[in-house]
C-alpha cells in the first residue's frame, strides 16, 4: 500500500523544527508502525540523509519506550495498542499520517520524535515505592491478600510509563500515571502504611514539575495503551487530601527538576 508520512523533524531542543513529508510506495500491511519507520530510515540513510529519531526497545508493548502522536492520537487509532504493536493494515491505502512527538511542558524535546520523560522517574523517586530494604521481608504468605485486592493492584500496576496520558491531556497532567502507582501500592496491605506520605511526596513532585492539573476530562484513560482506569485519580486525590489535612511530616520535599543531561 501507499502512504504519506508527515513527520516532525527537529534536530535538537534549540532548533525550530518543522514537518517533512515522505511518501512510501510499498508499505506491507503486516509491518508495524515502527517497522514502517525502519524502512523509511533505511532509504533516508541510503540517500545520505539523517534517519528519523524515535524511541523504542521491546517492540512488544511493555517497556513503554515508544510513543508518538498519529493524526493527533497518542499511539494511533487502535485501542489499547502501542505504536510498536500497531500494524499498518489499520490504515487505508493512500492515507496521510501526521506523526509528531508527545507535546508537554514537562517533556522537553530531544530530537525528532524523542522527548525527555525523566519527570516521570522523579515522581516515582518521590515516594512511588514501599520502603522495605532487602532482607526485611517476612514469608510471602504471612500476609494474605484477597484475590480482588491483588487484581486491583495489578490493574493499576500494568502502567508502562510511556507518557501517552500526558500527551493526550489538554492540560498535560500526569494524574493518571501518578494515580496508577499510588493505587497499585496503596491498595496492598504492605503499601498502606506509607500511603499518605507517598501521596504527599508524589503529588508534590507532580506539581513541582511542568505538568498541568487534572480537570477530569478523561482523555488520558482513553489513550492509555494499558487501559488504566480513571478511578486511580480519585484514589490519588483521596490519599492526598487526607494527608494534607493532617500533614505533620514536613520532611517531604520535592526533587528539583533538571533538564540538562550532564548529571553531576
Amino acid at each position: 500500500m501507499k502512504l504519506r508520512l508527515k513527520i516532525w523533524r527537529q534536530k535538537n531542543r534549540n532548533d525550530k523544527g518543522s514537518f517533512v513529508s515522505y511518501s512510501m510506495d510499498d508499505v506491507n500491511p503486516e509491518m508495524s508502525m515502527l517497522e514502517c519507520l525502519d524502512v523509511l530510515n533505511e532509504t533516508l540513510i541510503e540517500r545520505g540523509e539523517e534517519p528519523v529519531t524515535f524511541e523504542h526497545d521491546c517492540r512488544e508493548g511493555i517497556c513503554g519506550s515508544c510513543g508518538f502522536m498519529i493524526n493527533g492520537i497518542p499511539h494511533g487509532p487502535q485501542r489499547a495498542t502501542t505504536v510498536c504493536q500497531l500494524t499498518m493494515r489499520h490504515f487505508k491505502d493512500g492515507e496521510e499520517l501526521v506523526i509528531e512527538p508527545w507535546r508537554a511542558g514537562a517533556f522537553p524535546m530531544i530530537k525528532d520524535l524523542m522527548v525527555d520523560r525523566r519527570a516521570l522517574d522523579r515522581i516515582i523517586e518521590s515516594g512511588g515505592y514501599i520502603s522495605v530494604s532487602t532482607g526485611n521481608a517476612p514469608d510471602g504468605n504471612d500476609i494474605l491478600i484477597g484475590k480482588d485486592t491483588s487484581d486491583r493492584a495489578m490493574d493499576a500496576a500494568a502502567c508502562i510509563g510511556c507518557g501517552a496520558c500526558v500527551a493526550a491531556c489538554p492540560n498535560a497532567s500526569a494524574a493518571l500515571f501518578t494515580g496508577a502507582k499510588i493505587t497499585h501500592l496503596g491498595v496492598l496491605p504492605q503499601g498502606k502504611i506509607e500511603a499518605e506520605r507517598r501521596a504527599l511526596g508524589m503529588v508534590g513532585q507532580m506539581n513541582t514539575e511542568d505538568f498541568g492539573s487534572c480537570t477530569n476530562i478523561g482523555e488520558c484513560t482513553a489513550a492509555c495503551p494499558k487501559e488504566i482506569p480513571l478511578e486511580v485519580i480519585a484514589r490519588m486525590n483521596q490519599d492526598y487530601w487526607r494527608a494534607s489535612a493532617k500533614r505533620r511530616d514536613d520532611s517531604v520535599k520535592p526533587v528539583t527538576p533538571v533538564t540538562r543531561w550532564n548529571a553531576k
Partner: protein
Amino acid sequence: MTLDSKLPSGPIEQAWDKTRFDMKLVNPANKRKHSIIVVGSGLAGASAAATLGELGYNVKCFCFQDSPRRAHSIAAQGGINAAKNYQNDGDSVYRLFYDTVKGGDFRAREANVYRLAQISVSIIDQCVAQGVPFAREYGGALTNRSFGGAQVSRTFYARGQTGQQLLLGAYQALERQIHEKTVTMYPRTEMLDLIVIDGKARGIVVRHLVTGEITTHFADAVILGTGGYGNVYYLSTNAKGSNVTASWRAHKRGALFANPCYTQIHPTCIPVSGDYQSKLTLMSESLRNDGRIWVPKQKGDKRKPDQIPEEERDYYLERRYPSFGNLVPRDVASRNAKSVCDEGRGVGESGLGVYLDFTAAIKRLGEHVIRERYGNLFDMYQRITDEDPYKVPMRIYPAIHYTMGGLWVDYHLQSTIPGLFVLGEANFSDHGANRLGASALMQGLSDGYFVIPYTIGHYLASNKFAKVDSSNPEAQQAVANVKQITDKLLSIKGKRTVDSFHRELGKIMWEYCGMSRTAEGLEKAIGLIDALREEFWQNVNVPGSGDDLNQSLEKAGRVADFFELGRLMCVDARERNESCGGHFREEYQTPEGEAQRDDEHYSYVAAWGYNGPGQHPELNKEPLEFDYVHPSQRSYK
C-alpha cells in the same frame, strides 16, 4: 591461565552459609567511602544497585534507555521459580537444584545451582514485601503454576507480565535509593570501555547518548548486569537495544568469555513475515499443553489447513515422542520443527512455520475453556497476524530467546579481572547448556539482591584502593580507544546501512550456528563472518556526527562487537565435539537422532581469552564435577 572458581568445600547444603561466614565484612561507617559502579538496570543491575545503596555504599548506576524501568527484563512473561513448596506437591530446594542441573544437561556448576535454589525462596518474600502483585488464590495465598515441563508447580507469576512487575519492584527500590542519594542514576549513558588499573577494574568510559560526550567514571569495583547477546542473530525475542558491548569490551580487557555457543531457541514464536521484520514475538510455551503441532505429510502442500485431511497430516512430535508428545523440552521441539521445514513441509508463505492447532482441544473442552486459559495470547496472536486462532491453526516457528553463555565468573560472581563482577544473563554461571523456563528471573534477582552484597563486601574489605582519576594513563588510553572507534565508524561513509550488515550477520549465525551445527558449517561461517566484518569496516554508512544523538552510531558500535562475538561463538561450537542442551552438533547424535553428550571429553566450561580481532582465541578449561546429581542421558521417547 588456571581458573580458580573459589568453590566452597564441604557439604553443598552448607556451602553458601560457610562462604558467607568466611567472608570479610566492611565496617558500616566505611561503606560510604567505597564507590561501586553498576552498569545495567535490569533485574540483575537494579536489584544490585538498590541493595548496595541500602547497605550504604556510594553507587553509580548506568543504563542506555531513558529510564531504568525500561530494561529488557520488563518483557519476561511466564514467571519466576522458587522452591517454596506452597503447593505441598513434593518440591524442595534439592529438587529445584536437581531439575536445574539436569535441565542444563550437566554443564553447570553444582554449588552455584544449589545456592540459587536456596535463595529462590527469599526472592519471593522480598518481592511480595515490595508490592509485586503476584497471582493469588481466593483465600489470599500465593498461587503457582507448573512451567517448562516441571513436575511440580513452583512458578510464581503476575498475569503474563511477571518480568514487568519484578522489574518495577527493583526499579522502585532503586528510585528510593536515588532519593536517599546513595545511588546516582545515569540514564541514556552507554558504557563503551572498562578501565583496568594495576590489574583491577577501576572504572568505565561512557558516551552520553544525547550529548555525545565521552567521559570517565571511577570506583573501587565495577558490576556488569548488561544482559544477554541473543541479538547477534539480528532476529530474536530480545529487545532491540539488547547488546553485548559492555561484556565484549570487558572481554577485550581480559575477562574470559565462557560457553558462548550455548544459546536457547524457543519453539513457539510467531514466524517471520517479511524482510522488514525487526524482531520476533514469543508466544508462551504453555500453549503446547493444549495445542497439537503438525505439518502436511506431503512436501510443498499449499492447501489451506482445513482442507488437509487428517490422514495427510503429520503430528511429528506425537509420532516421534509418544510419551512426551507436544510437551518435549524446548530444544527438542525446536530442532524437530526445523527439520520438517528443511524437508520442505513447512507452512505459511515462507515455508518456515508449523501449525499449532487447537481444534481438538476446542472440540474436547469447548471454546470458553480455551479462551479462559489462553485468551490474552490468542488476542496477541491475532493483533499481530490478523488471523483468528480459534478458527485457523496458529503458525509458529522457533526463535533465539536467551543466551546461557557469558562472561566467566567464580562462585563470588567475580570475573577473571579482579574487581569486575558480572550478574544476570551477562554471566555464564547457573544454567549450563540449557536454561529451564522461569529460571532467568530467579537468577538475576538472586545475584543482585542476595549474592553480590556479600561477595563485593569481601572484595572491598580485602583490597586497598589507590586514588585514580582521568589522568591515569590507563584511563586516557581507554578514552582514546573509544574515540578512535567512534571516529572510525563515522568516517567510513560507505554504501551499506548498519542494519543491512546486522541482518546478514544474523542470517549466517542462524544458518550455521543456530539450532543445529556441523564442523563444516561452522568453518564456513567463520570465513563468512571474517569477510563481512572486513566489508563492514570499509563500507558501512553511519550518517550524522558523534556530537549529538545518533542512533545509527549506537547501533554500529554494537554490531561491530557482534561480529567478533559471532566468530567466537562459531569457534566455541566447533571446538565442542558433542551435543548438549542448546548446542546440537549433527555429527553427535544417537541413532534415534537425539543429542549425544560426551562427558568423558567435554565435561568442562570453555572459557575463552581474547587475542585480537580475527586471531584464534585462547581456550581455558574449568572441569566440572558432579557429586550429587549423576549425569545421565535425557530421553523423552
